[in-house]
């Protein structure tokens, strides 16, 4: 469903993503781990078509993000880091805008909006301006927007950041419910969530993959479990000049 082929991005002074390649199949939930600046968000932005790769490609359901961007983007639900939203809109008008942008038919639109409102559990705030919502609710509105067109591939950048434990549990349950039908890539800092949500883990450091395992295998690789394994891997490479 998702195939990264030597995806690379460099900024002025450093290599952010150094030729990543991996595939993600339907039914897989891939935890994308790494410390801040490791290249997680840059990778997700390239897959989502927000950033242009310097070289390489990402195929989403067979559609290239570099040569068939619109077709590829229509297969992706993307929750950007920080869940940026239009603060002057209400969740309802925002979700209608997203439905328009995904060219849902009028007859599909209402059902899609109702479905994601129920899935993200935001029914009690749909008429409230987004600016007045708590961070947790805003994150859930962003999640609802990512799901509006029922995409086969989901990219969730820190989906539980800012949520309280109950909300985190709800997001985990939602991911588990969707997992059999979708390929899901989740970037997270919260290691506790990885075994609960993910069937596979990739750790990146300075734009390189340094581990690609199941959460159990990664946790068992060190006596200190997942946290120790992550700390060992997350800063294991020398910085690479551009």
């Amino acid at each position, binding site marked *: 469903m998702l195939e990264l082929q030597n995806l690379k991005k460099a900024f002025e002074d450093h290599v952010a993503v150094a030729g990543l390649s991996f595939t993600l199949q339907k039914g897989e939930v891939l935890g994308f781990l790494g410390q801040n600046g490791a290249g997680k968000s840059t990778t997700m932005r390239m897959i989502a078509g927000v*950033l242009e790769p310097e070289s390489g490609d990402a195929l989403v359901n067979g559609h290239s993000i570099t040569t068939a961007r619109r077709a590829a983007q229509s297969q992706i639900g993307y929750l*950007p880091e920080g869940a*940026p939203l239009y603060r002057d809109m209400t969740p309802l008008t925002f979700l209608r805008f997203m439905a*328009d*942008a995904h060219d849902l038919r009028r007859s599909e639109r209402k059902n899609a909006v109702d479905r994601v409102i129920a899935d993200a559990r935001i029914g009690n705030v749909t008429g409230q301006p987004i600016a007045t919502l708590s961070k947790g609710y805003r994150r859930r509105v962003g999640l609802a927007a990512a799901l509006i067109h029922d995409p086969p591939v989901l990219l969730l950048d820190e989906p539980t950041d800012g949520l309280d434990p109950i909300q985190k549990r709800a997001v985990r349950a939602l991911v588990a419910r969707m997992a059999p039908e979708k390929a899901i890539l989740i970037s997270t800092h919260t290691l506790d969530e990885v075994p609960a949500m993910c069937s596979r883990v990739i750790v990146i450091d300075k734009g390189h993959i340094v581990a690609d395992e199941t959460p159990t295998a990664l946790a068992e690789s060190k006596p200190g479990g997942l946290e120790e394994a992550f700390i060992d891997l997350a800063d294991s490479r020398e910085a690479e000049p551009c």
Partner: protein
Amino acid sequence: MLGVDWHGLVTGIRAAWRREISAYFATPLAYVFVAIFLLVLGIFTWDLSRFFDTGAADLGPFFYWHPWLFLLFMPALAMRLWAEEASQGTSELLLSLPVSLSGLVIGKLLAAWTVAAIALVLTFPWWITVNILGPADNPAIALTYFVSLIMAGGYLAIGAAVSALTRSAVLAFVIGVLVAFILTAAGWPLVSGAIAEVLGPAAGDAVAQFSFVTHFETAQRGVLELRGLFFFFGFIALCVTLNTLFISQRRGST
């Protein structure tokens, strides 16, 4: 045809237009803009142009101010179109949508243009007044309104394109006004005359041809010049192209 993704273009225009119209009217922005525009245009026409003292059934004193007010008001209307997307991080959301970038650019411009059209429509009491004063040349007035609306699109296109260059709406406004001022003042006899004196009459004429005022004045005389329409639509197309280019560059550097 010509490699244009029409479906993505139309989807982008529709989504961006609806979003921006909702943004203009969800806050007092559009209402305040229209109210202040009508008030200032009214004061200028009534007081500075001595509209009623002319004793003529002519909207010339009213249309005279349009370019000069547009150069301030249209960049104000357009300044947040793209700058705010950058400052609030929502451009990332927009760039991830399966729509054409040109569609988003055109949709946003059309939304601002719609607000400008509403402001122009609400000046209808002036048109009624001039008909009460005497027999007015209504086809010429309708033509001037039409060209004024097209000209407003030109000023908005400048504001939108400049807004794509910065994260600050205020900076976008200042630069937008500056560019708009140059394109307005170039047709002012004082400026084109000075250029003609220094560089020769051909240079003065050439500079004046790049001014909005020059082409608008032709319409004010009741003449619809295709050259004028080409100028305005060509200029808008150029700004839309630049705007799309500026936004697409965010894909390389976000």
